């Protein structure tokens, strides 16, 4: 309902139209405008005025200004002079009637003046001078109620003063305390030579300085006055800025907030978290014990046999060397066709195989070390393979080497379409994952099954360049580290389980805790991030102990140790205790910085690996040596 102004009801009431006080827009689409007293339709007057006519009318008609549109009848009404005058009066807030005088003289009938002739001359009633029975009854009731205690007489007004002693409840010491908190006003600077009435001449300003002083803003001036020289104190005039200066001083005292600075006295040692002393966390590697010399170029990768008796190292001098751990004796040297990027000893104790990656090839080598039975069983396992009837077209060629390579121990050669950077075995020893980093390509990670000589590409699409991969030690998970994230895939359900955010620029290496719930990542921006998979996808702890990029990280299989190797030539060993209690967070204590590698071509330690049974750590470096720290 549109709102109608109230005055329209009394103003434009036209009895000719019986529709009542309604918005006339309702009849907008009808030819009539309402009904008259007889119930006949009142038709709208024919109006053919358009905008132009309206405009011309406005320009030419001298009475246009007093013409109004009557909505009820739809006609134009030209107001008379009296009506216009009435409108003006009402607009001015005057009475409508011209003849009405609102200021007529008032006649006071009931005044204080006693008239000679009273208005009435009746004698006073009797009841006006005898006591009232009704009142007596009412008073009696009140008296009875007060006697019975039903009504309490009004309490006497308290005459206690309204002000009180603000400090009455304060004990005297507190008053002293208030005085202790007294902060003295800042002292004014004492007047110097320039304020003197007879300053030394060097304090007097030269003409140029005076000009500069005058041009400066009062705020910028060094001195708020001009030093002046007088012959005697007697000649000094009154200080014209005295009042202003006092005022400014008062403003300073009043407006400048004064507060005592609360200094927190914290013992800096209390801020350091309570960590056990490294001495109590023995055993861990502390000393360089053995150096394995032999390679002529940087050693990219090392791996220890599951028994802990042998060590394999792959170097840029295109050789793979097998070492006896306890004597540093090189038992075997194998030349391959390119710089060796990665070596990995099969973790299964019943298989004697080493995966070596160089260029686009991965070769599986039977080193022939350790138990003869296991070596021959491994050879048999590989040679017993039978070609399946339907040969699938695979992206990776499996070939059996012949001649000298076979004699050297090479058993299978896998030729990939791209250069292989890393190889990683599954704990059971049948599956081998290879990484071919290539940003955005769909073929970056392949998983080989050695016993069936099958290759599968687990991912249709890889986000980012894959840096390294790892199998989970106990569950069917597969960890893929790209430059910034580590993705944990469930191989059985074939889905992404977790995505760990490493908070670093470029992940270089990754290791999974043998318990399976923790992962460490080394990155090229000097950080080592420890993830607790149960806790969060963000790092539980980030260690920034290395000065240069991390190249390798490793967990120990049994001891609560992990190590990281870096380009600054050091290996940092940390105690990383993981508790069975889910509520207790892992305890991480850096325990030892191991130095020994010589930095060559700005590269220090390239790979670290722990001995499977002893608390020993091996590191391989750009100086062509492998070092054992015990």
């Amino acid at each position, binding site marked *: 309902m549109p709102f109608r102004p109230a005055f329209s009801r009394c103003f434009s009431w036209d009895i000719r139209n019986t529709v009542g006080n309604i918005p006339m827009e309702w009849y907008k689409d009808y030819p009539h405008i309402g009904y008259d007293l007889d119930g006949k339709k009142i038709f709208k007057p024919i109006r053919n005025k358009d905008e132009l006519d309206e405009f011309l009318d406005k320009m030419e008609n001298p009475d246009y200004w007093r013409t109004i549109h009557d909505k009820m009848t739809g006609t134009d009404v030209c107001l008379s002079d009296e009506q216009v005058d009435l409108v003006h009066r009402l607009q001015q807030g005057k009475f409508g009637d011209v003849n009405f005088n609102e200021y007529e003289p008032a006649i006071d009938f009931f005044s204080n003046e006693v008239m000679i002739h009273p208005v009435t001359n009746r004698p006073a009633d009797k009841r006006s001078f005898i006591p009232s029975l009704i009142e007596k009854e009412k008073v009696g009731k009140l008296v009875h109620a007060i006697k019975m205690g039903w009504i309490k007489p009004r309490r006497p007004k308290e005459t206690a003063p309204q002000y009180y002693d603000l400090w009455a409840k304060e004990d005297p010491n507190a008053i002293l305390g208030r005085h202790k908190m007294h902060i003295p006003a800042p002292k004014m600077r004492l007047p110097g030579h320039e304020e003197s009435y007879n300053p030394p001449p060097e304090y007097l300003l030269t003409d140029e300085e005076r000009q500069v002083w005058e041009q400066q803003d009062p705020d910028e001036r060094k001195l708020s006055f001009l030093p002046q020289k007088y012959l005697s104190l007697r000649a000094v005039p009154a200080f014209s800025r005295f009042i202003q200066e006092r005022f400014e001083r008062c403003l300073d005292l009043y407006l400048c907030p004064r507060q005592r600075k609360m200094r927190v006295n914290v013992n800096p040692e209390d801020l350091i978290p309570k960590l056990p002393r490294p001495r109590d966390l*023995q055993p861990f590697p502390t*000393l360089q014990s*053995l150096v394995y010399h032999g390679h002529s170029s940087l050693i990219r990768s090392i791996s220890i046999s599951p*028994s802990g008796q042998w060590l394999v190292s792959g170097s840029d001098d295109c050789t793979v060397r097998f070492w006896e751990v306890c*004597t540093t004796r090189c*038992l075997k040297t194998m030349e391959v066709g390119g710089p060796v990027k990665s070596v990995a000893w099969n973790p299964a104790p019943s298989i004697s195989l080493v995966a070596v990656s160089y260029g686009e090839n991965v070769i599986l080598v039977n080193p022939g070390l*350790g138990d003869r*039975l296991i070596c021959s069983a491994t050879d048999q396992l590989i040679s017993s393979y039978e070609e399946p009837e339907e040969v699938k077209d695979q992206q990776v060629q499996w070939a059996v080497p012949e001649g000298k390579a076979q004699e050297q121990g090479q058993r299978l050669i896998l030729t990939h379409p791209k250069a292989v950077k890393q190889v990683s075995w599954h704990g059971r020893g049948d599956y081998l994952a290879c990484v071919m980093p290539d940003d955005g390509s769909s073929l970056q990670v392949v998983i080989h099954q050695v016993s069936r000589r099958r290759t599968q590409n687990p991912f249709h699409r890889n986000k980012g360049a894959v840096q390294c991969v790892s199998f989970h030690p106990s569950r069917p998970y597969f960890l893929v580290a790209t430059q910034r994230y580590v993705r944990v895939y469930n191989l059985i359900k074939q889905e992404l389980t977790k995505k760990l955010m490493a908070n670093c620029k470029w992940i270089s290496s990754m290791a999974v805790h043998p318990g399976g719930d923790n992962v460490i990542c080394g990155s090229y921006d000097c950080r080592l991030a420890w993830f607790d998979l149960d806790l969060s996808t963000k790092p539980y702890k980030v260690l920034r102990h290395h000065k240069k990029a991390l190249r390798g990280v490793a967990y120990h299989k049994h001891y609560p140790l992990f190590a990281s190797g870096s380009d600054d030539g050091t290996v940092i060993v940390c105690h990383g205790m993981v508790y069975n209690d889910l509520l207790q967070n892992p305890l991480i204590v850096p325990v030892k910085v191991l130095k020994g590698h010589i930095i060559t071509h700005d590269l220090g330690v390239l790979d670290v690996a722990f001995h499977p049974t*002893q608390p020993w750590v091996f590191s391989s470096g750009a100086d062509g040596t492998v070092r054992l720290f*015990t």
Partner: protein
Amino acid sequence: MSQLQARFFTDNKKYVIDDVPFSIPAVSEITDLSNVINKLLEGKNGDHKHVEFDFLVQGQFLRSSLATHLETENISTEEVVEIEYVEKYTAPQPEECIMHDDWISSVEADSEWILTGSYDKTARIWSLEGKAVATVAGHTDVVKGVAWVKRDGLSSLLLTASLDQTVLLWEWSSERNKLRARHCCRGHAGSVDTISVDPTRSKFCSGSWDKMLKIWSAEMSEESNRPRKKQKTEQLGPTRTPLMTLSGHTEAVSSVLWMDTEELCSASWDHTIRLWDAETGSQKNMLTGSKVFNCISYSPLCHRLATGSTDRHVRLWDPRSKDGSLVLLSLTSHTGWVTAVRWSPSHEQQLISGSLDNLVKLWDTRSCKAPLYDLAAHEDKVLCADWTDCGLILSGGADNKLYTYRYSACLSDAGA
């Protein structure tokens, strides 16, 4: 404190002096004290020749000035200090340097011949003068351990253990210089690192990387039982199986020895030394250390075990102790892993140790901070050492050289 009261005494009847306290300067060192004793002896005995002495205060060798020694050992200088003096041990005299083709992994010598095992997959027999006598070739991998079994006139029995998981028993006749493999002992599933022959020379024990100890018979079997045909096919002799297997170690066995005819002792990478009953094969005692044991040696003279670990200490143990396994003494002077220790067969307080820091050290247990002598001849890691009954010290290492030293405890014994 410039002077202190000292009384000198000795067990050697030849050098006895009067049992009276002397006032000697506190700063005096071994040479000063030695001069004092020599002066006294000259005074007593006109034809006395100058002898260098070593001095012991409460069983510890004096290696610094008397005052500092007493201060570090916390001995009161108020009372008369009892100082024992003994004739100074002479340095071992280097004799031979025997070149090998490859690293020497093990050595054992008897009174006439030296047997060495090498990384070139052979063992070699040398005369004490360093002349190559025979090459024992038959293993397909590095020879890790060697041992003489016994000598019957001109023919000897010897053992070689190898990385190829076998132990070979050889018969060698020194007259015709003919070698024949008599038995091939198979059974280990890892490299056989150590062998030891029992005192009766009828059995031997081998320790292997497969965590097992195996006891084998060292007797020769009857040849007539063997068909002639089979002999040709088996060049290394008939296969022999172990009499007994001792299992208990959780890591590789690095060293094994017989303490007497019934008791075996083994040291392992699992940080333990275990004592076994050789008759029943049961474990009798266990000593626990904190580091991997590389080598072990037992002295029947002082009933102590000496071990070398993957740190720089030589530790002495008492194998009889039941109440906890405490280290009696650590001898610390090496800077690398100790790979070989050997007690002196004749002196109850002396032993040698070889280390990866290229040094062989001669120790007296009365001086645990400093060895008696450093034998610094090797240019690379020392891997093995031996000390024969006739006073010959041998050491071999990664510089392919076997050094021999003649050592007699005292000058006076040298002629004898």
